[in-house]
Structures are given as structure tokens and as C-alpha cells.
């Protein structure tokens, strides 16, 4: 995913697009994530100023939601569903396999991949499910997982 460096001009353009309305904060943070890949200290400062909120307010929202990172992720984000329907179809061993084959614990990154759990992708009739760079994939065996990960470099 191509992300750009944080710039105050771009960030202010985004907040202005939402009318600098504080009630749009969660939606604005999504827009920042799409554009910059994470919500850094400078983004928090700018949001507080533009939306007329305190930095503590903004920090409280950023830290509450799992979606908002405070540091960039690796090029690819691989999420493994860890909720019940996928557990019933072996997601625990799929997660173990993923950790072992990538050499990453959950929430860890290497220079290529960030590995994370996710709690339900709504694909529970095709368990176990994973999400790779925002795309949901179902019926994932360990072998299929390895093929998917191996195929990532070609389209990174």
C-alpha cells in the first residue's frame, strides 16, 4: 500500500473536507490512516487544533479503537480471525502456524509483514478466515496461508 509522509497541509485539507467538525473525528482518523498509515503525535496536535478539541480528547479516541495505529505498519498487514466460529475450524492452530512460519508473534512486524489477530470478519461460514491488506479470504488452510503470503511480494 502506498502511503505518503504526514504533512500539515494535506492533513488540514482532510479535516476541512469534513468541515473541521469534532463529531467527524472517527471518520477523519480513518482518512488519516488511509493517507498516512498511522496517527502520529503531530497528527494528534493538528487534529486538536483544527477540531477545537484538547489533545487528551483526541488521544483518548485514537487509543480507544483497535484500527488506529500510532506507528506505521509493515508493507503488508495480515490479520487472522481469532473469534469463535474460526476457532471451531482451527484458527488457533492456523495462528500458531502463521507465527511460526513468519517468525512473528501477534502484533509484531518484520520489514515486510505485520501480523495481528482480528475478532470476526463476518465470514463465519467460510472459516477459518483471514484478512490480507484489507481483503477477506476464507477457508484458509495452513498450506493456503503459505501460498498467500508467498504471493504477496509480487504485488507489494
Amino acid at each position, binding site marked *: 500500500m502506498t502511503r505518503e509522509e504526514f504533512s500539515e497541509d494535506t492533513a488540514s485539507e482532510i479535516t476541512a473536507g469534513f468541515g473541521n467538525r469534532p463529531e467527524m473525528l472517527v471518520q477523519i482518523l*480513518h482518512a488519516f490512516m488511509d493517507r498516512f498509515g498511522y496517527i502520529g503525535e503531530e497528527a494528534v496536535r493538528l487534529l486538536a487544533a483544527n477540531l477545537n478539541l484538547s489533545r487528551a480528547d483526541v488521544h483518548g*479516541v485514537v487509543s480507544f479503537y483497535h484500527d488506529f495505529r500510532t506507528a506505521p505498519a509493515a508493507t503488508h498487514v495480515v490479520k487472522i480471525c481469532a*473469534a*469463535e*466460529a*474460526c476457532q471451531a475450524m482451527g484458527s488457533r492452530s492456523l495462528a500458531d502456524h502463521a507465527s511460526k512460519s513468519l517468525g512473528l508473534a501477534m502484533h509484531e512486524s518484520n520489514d515486510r509483514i505485520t501480523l495481528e489477530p482480528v475478532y*470476526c470478519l*463476518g465470514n*463465519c461460514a467460510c472459516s477459518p478466515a483471514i484478512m490480507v491488506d484489507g481483503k*477477506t479470504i476464507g477457508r484458509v488452510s495452513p498450506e493456503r496461508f503459505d501460498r498467500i503470503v508467498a504471493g504477496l511480494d509480487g504485488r507489494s
Partner: protein
Amino acid sequence: MRTRIYVPRETAAISVGADDVAIAIARYAKEHDHSIELVRNGSWGATWLEPLVEVVVGEQRIAYGNVAAGDVAGLFESGLLDGGQHDKRVGPVNEIPYLINQDRWTFWRCGLINPLSVDDFLAHQGFKAISRAFDAGPQAVIDMIKASGLRGRGGAGFPAGIKWQTVADTPGQQKYVACNADEGDSGTFSDRIMMESDPLGLVEGMMIAGFAVGASKGYIYLRSEYPLTYSVLNRAIVAARESGWLGENIQGSGFDFDIDVHLGAGSYVCGEETAMLESLEGKAGVIRYKPPLPAIEGLFGKPTVVNNVVTLSSVPNIVNLGGEKYAAYGVNRSTGTLAFQLAGNIKRGGLVEKAFGLTLRELIEDWGGGTASGRPVKAVQVGGPLGAYIPAAQLDTPMDYEAFITIGAMIGHGGIVVFDDTADMAQQARFAMEFCALESCGKCTPCRIGAVRGVEVIDRLIADENREENYELLVELCDTMENASLCAMGGMTPYPVQSVLKYFPEDFAPQKELASE
């Protein structure tokens, strides 16, 4: 003449290759000069058959199931365009028993139509109900919903008509309709299938709610784990606006209504209605004390109808066919239909919309075909992560809100997650606490601290430390969380734990003397 081929654009179908199949079909047809019209429909909900490709032959739609991109050339060579014989051929889609034996009141357009086409929607009774509502007037609409007995399909089961009446009766210049599409329960995907397959059906339901209570603005609070749904919903809403079915003075009725889609951000507790309202206001999803009810002081402090996707999508046909007709489905106080979702270790997973009253066994065995692994069913979690684990001995319980409460379980949003006999129920109990610790909004102590302590106590039980002491502690902790938490997150997390203690005590340790009193 061009032959029409349907390939779903729906998350589950795409997750198992539907996009690749669509590309392969288009490419093959082009290379071989076949004249086709490729339509991306939603899903019928027979997820176990996805990707399900249909070819229109005469009056019929011939279905091919579990189609892979690699099958496409062979399918064409077998006469796909004439519905030719092939290993993957399922037959006419309207003869698939899994589908035709359902009671499709709410999901009937799903799979049938192109979700992004207003014309297709109009050709299938679309916006007929809102036009009827305009003629009947707001109170008559609320009376229809009351007569239907429709209860909130998000899980709480509160009568929708009473909620609407409260909002309608509360004075206020500005009111809102907030659709809860934060479908976070594992094992559930009916909201998603509705929004991806018939988004305008939801739009029409929200319009009717807005008209009935006097709201001009609707929000859909959609979980961020559903990126495709976000795109489909937004495109459908734009199409509705462009054709004059959303916006000011809709079709000359004098009624203004518009809808915005807001994304959640990965928080489970935001499915709780007051946390959802906080999140819609741009804040952290910390729950609110009730009262005041959202119907009286909801979004931005204004009277707000908060209903789930399926609740609102059930409304148009209630207005078209009458509340009594809907109420004739179902049993006792569970009137109408529910979209059950078969998930987890199940052979034929998918969506089954049926009148209340059939048993869990019928759903799992007749529709689901038993476990995917072929092993015996050990436990079934109904109603998401806060629902009890039901043992195989209770599979004959009828699907009825009150019957489920009687056995200490809940129907919730209708998700049914099947586990076979290899499941370690002690680990499932531990996960219930772990998930609560992870997702608690932190406002109340029983939930915030109780869940963390719950994980610790269960770990000690699994390790066989001071069994009796820890067992008693866990029972007490569950009791405290259940009775002292502010919302269902902390209040119901004990349900799966207690059910494991009651029905699967042997999974906590090698010895079995821990059986419940």
C-alpha cells in the same frame, strides 16, 4: 442475444474466489466471441456453495456451485451458456432445497437482483412500501409495526413498534434513525449479506422509520471489518439520491430523508447502542447510563430510533403485506422470521431465514448437514460471544426468544456456531473472559477488572490449582459481573463461562469430580 451470467460480489463469495471467477468468465467469453452480460449480484446466502455462478437459460437461472477460476474453460466447453451438464452444476437456483424451504420475508431479493441497480430494485417491489407509507401516514405505519410484533434483531429483542412510538411521541425538531450495522458477534453475517445483496431494501426500511417518527436524517454505523459492504452501501445510496429516492422532497411527497454511512474502528462494544451513539458523535465508544433511553435522548441528545440492519430491512414487507401477515409467522412472542446463520464447524454454512419455532437440531442437521469435520457435535454457541454454549443434549430447543432464556441461553442476532467433539471448552470459557477484557469500554469495574480476573481464575482452574476455592471464586465473579455490570458486555460475558461450568466441567481438569452442584 446476450446470455446473462450472475457472479456474486459479496464478501464470502469473493473470499473464496468469486472475483477471479468473474474475470475468468469475462476473459473466456471475449476470447471465444460469446456474447454475455456479466451481472454481479449479491448472495442467496447458500455460502457453502460459493462461488455460486448462475446462467440465465430461458426463464430459469441455472446454478453452478463452488466454481473456481480453473473450472471456467471446462464449464464453457460443457455448454455453460445453455445450462449444460457439469460436475459443478447444481440445477435451477429456485429448486435448491436449502433455499426454497426457507421463509424469505426479509432476504427475498438477496441474490435475485443487482444490488446497485435502482431499476432492478423498482422492478422487484422496491420503494413500494415507502409510497404506501406516505399514503397511510406515520401513525398507521407505527401501528403496522406494532401489529407485526417485530422485535429488535440485533440481539436484545425489544419490540420495534414501541420504540418507534416513543420516538414519535417525544417532541423535537430534529430526530434521527441510527442503523446499527456493527455486526461484531462471531458467527453472524446476516447484516452483511443484506447490505451487500439488497442495500436499497435497508435504505427503504430506514426511510419508513424516518417517516414514521419524524426524522429527516439517518446514519448507518458500519463496522470497519466490512470494506466491501462500505463501498456497496455508499454506491447504492448515491444511486438512490440520483434517482430522487433520497434527499429533499422525495418523489414529491414533501418528506426529506438522507443517509450517511459512518465507519466503526474495530471496537466490539460499539455494537452496544449507546456506545455506538458515542462513536457516531466522534468519541470513544464508552457506553452511556440508561435512562435516558436513546429513543428520548439519543444521537446528539435528540430522539433516535436505534435499530439493527435486519430489523429495519424487515419493515418494507410489513408495510406491503400488513403486520398481521408477519405476525402469523413464528411462535409465542417470537413472531415473524429470523435470519439464522450457520457457522463454524458446519458442512453447509450460510444464511437460513425461517419462522421462529423450528429447533436448533433442524437447523444444524437438516440445513447444515452436521459438522464439516463429520465428527459429533459437542457444543453450539448461539447468539455470539456473549451467548451460552449449548450441549448436544439441548439441540431440540425451539428457536424462540423465551425458550432460549429458559435454558439460560439467548438467540441474540441468530448466529449459530457449531463445535465438534475436539473442542476444548475450558479454552472457550477462557476466551469469553479474554475477549471481554480486550473489548471492555472500561466504564464499569465488574467488566473492566472482572474480565481480567476471570482469565486468571480460569487459568488456575485449568492448571488444577486449589480447585474448589477457584471454582467458587469463578462462580462468584460471574455472579458479580452478571448483576453489577452496566451493559451486556460485562453482564453477559458470564453466560458462556457458566454454561461451560455447568455442561462441560470435565474439560477444566483431568478429574471429573468438579461436576456442578
